[in-house]
């Protein structure tokens, strides 16, 4: 398995605050990798470390097999970073912004790269509009276009869908998936748990540590479910911890009872499952 990113024992402190505490992560090439967690979990710090905008206090970072500390400039030419806020020049047009960031990469044909990037983000009609006249969602698109313009192999997207309406959010995820079909690796941070389902793997970050690192499907199957068996007008509620394993066993107990009129199974959402994982970890930490 080719690795796009490898973090080993990464610790980052801001004064007395430890933003990341011994984080180990490996991100396979060509995947969509999600980093989820509440505000202050260390997601943005992780992103900024990966792009070389911050230096870790401890640990090593490899991007595409190169040591970030030693080969920062070379690594950056293969990285596209989309910050949380659309960091753009408001008094330039969308196309001028994208072209300016493209020129930093010394591309052979800046005009063509800008055109392709604006087409991909569906911004051709607004290319000549000043950024200050664009809506928040449009600005996010310009920011994405500037991130993609040099066709990076690794994309670091820090909360790219924050403040974006559901329709645009859906279109963003379609575009992200498109990028992996062209060989790109995406690392996406989000605090919107429902977006995790779009990722191939997910790391759940809390207070600077990785609680778990799994596929979204696996996180869901570890979630709980509420099974309500109705006998006439009387509900019988059962909480099951292992949703796919326990539910069939539980139902077998009821299936021959002629009094059963209805069975309702309410599985946890991914958001519930992630929050439960975080709560379990916190409870474990307090007990320990």
């Amino acid at each position: 398995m080719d690795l796009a990113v490898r973090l080993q024992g990464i610790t980052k402190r801001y004064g007395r605050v430890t933003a990341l505490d011994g984080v180990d992560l490996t991100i396979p090439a060509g995947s969509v990798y999600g980093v989820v967690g509440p505000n202050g979990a260390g997601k943005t710090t992780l992103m900024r470390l990966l792009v070389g905008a911050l230096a870790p206090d401890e640990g090593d970072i490899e991007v595409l097999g190169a040591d970030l500390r030693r080969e920062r400039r070379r690594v950056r030419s293969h990285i596209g970073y989309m910050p949380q806020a659309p960091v753009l020049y408001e008094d330039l047009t969308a196309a001028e912004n994208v072209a300016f960031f493209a020129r930093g990469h010394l591309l052979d044909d800046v005009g063509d790269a800008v055109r392709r990037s604006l087409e991909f983000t569906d911004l051709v009609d607004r290319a000549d509009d000043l950024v200050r006249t664009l809506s928040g969602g449009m600005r996010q698109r310009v920011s994405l276009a500037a991130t993609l313009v040099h066709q990076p192999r690794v994309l670091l997207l820090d909360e790219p869908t924050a403040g974006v309406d559901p329709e645009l959010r859906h279109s963003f995820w379609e575009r992200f998936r498109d990028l992996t079909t062209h060989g790109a690796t995406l690392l996406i941070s989000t605090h919107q748990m429902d977006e995790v389902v779009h990722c191939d793997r997910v790391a759940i970050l809390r207070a600077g540590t990785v609680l778990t690192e799994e596929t979204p499907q696996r996180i869901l199957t570890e979630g709980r479910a509420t099974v309500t068996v109705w006998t006439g007008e009387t509900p019988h509620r059962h909480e099951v911890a292992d949703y796919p394993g326990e539910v069939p066993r539980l139902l077998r107990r009821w299936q021959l009872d002629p009094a059963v009129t209805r069975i309702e199974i309410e599985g946890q959402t991914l958001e519930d499952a992630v929050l439960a994982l975080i709560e379990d970890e916190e409870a474990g930490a307090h007990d320990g």
Partner: protein
Amino acid sequence: MTASRTAAVAARVLRQLARDRRFVVLMLVAPLGIVFFTKTLFDAADTPLLDVTPFAVPFGCFIIHFATFILTALVLVRERTAETMERMFINGYHRSEIITGYLLAYTTLATALSLLVLAELQWLFALGYGVGRLASIFLVMWLLAMISMALGILVSNAARSEAQVIPFIPAIVLPSLIFSGIIVAVDRMPVWAQVLSRISPMYYANEVLQELIAGSGLGGDVASVVMLPVGGIVVLLLATQTLREKG
């Protein structure tokens, strides 16, 4: 450092300036207004025997020093606080390219400002200087503007917000006026003040200007003439080295 990236920064800054006409007009008009107020002050003092030229011309220079210093410091701090500076680095721009690009773009503004202030001085104070002397004074103004911009970049590296630039105004700009020799001759000051004056670009500018006003030409004080570009290069190197790439 590549020329194309440097040119991209300069072109981008110039484009932004061209779109912000109100800022450009204020940037050019405000110094002209201050020079005009200075003339009004001297007229009101009504001292016909006093030749105000040795004060007025260097003071015009000081206004350019003040304006270009503040402008550069604020613009670069804004670039940092808006995180566009970080995005430039991430997208391949180097420190030297960013600084040189900014200098190239703002040089156009500084050149226009120097020409306008010089023309106003010539007209208001009826200097009656020939082209050669005016060109020499312009060169001093222009070099001072370059150092001031480099100083602005240096200061912006130490400030994390626009508000943090404000303490640098009295800390850098006012001593450069006090120790320049424009108000009181430096050799009448205590030794420590004379030492301090030697690190102020305004001191060297004033030394050269006094020679020019007296009619000696640029050869009258070659050391001070040389110190202006040398000082500019030193400050620029310092600014480049201290421009933070990492948070």
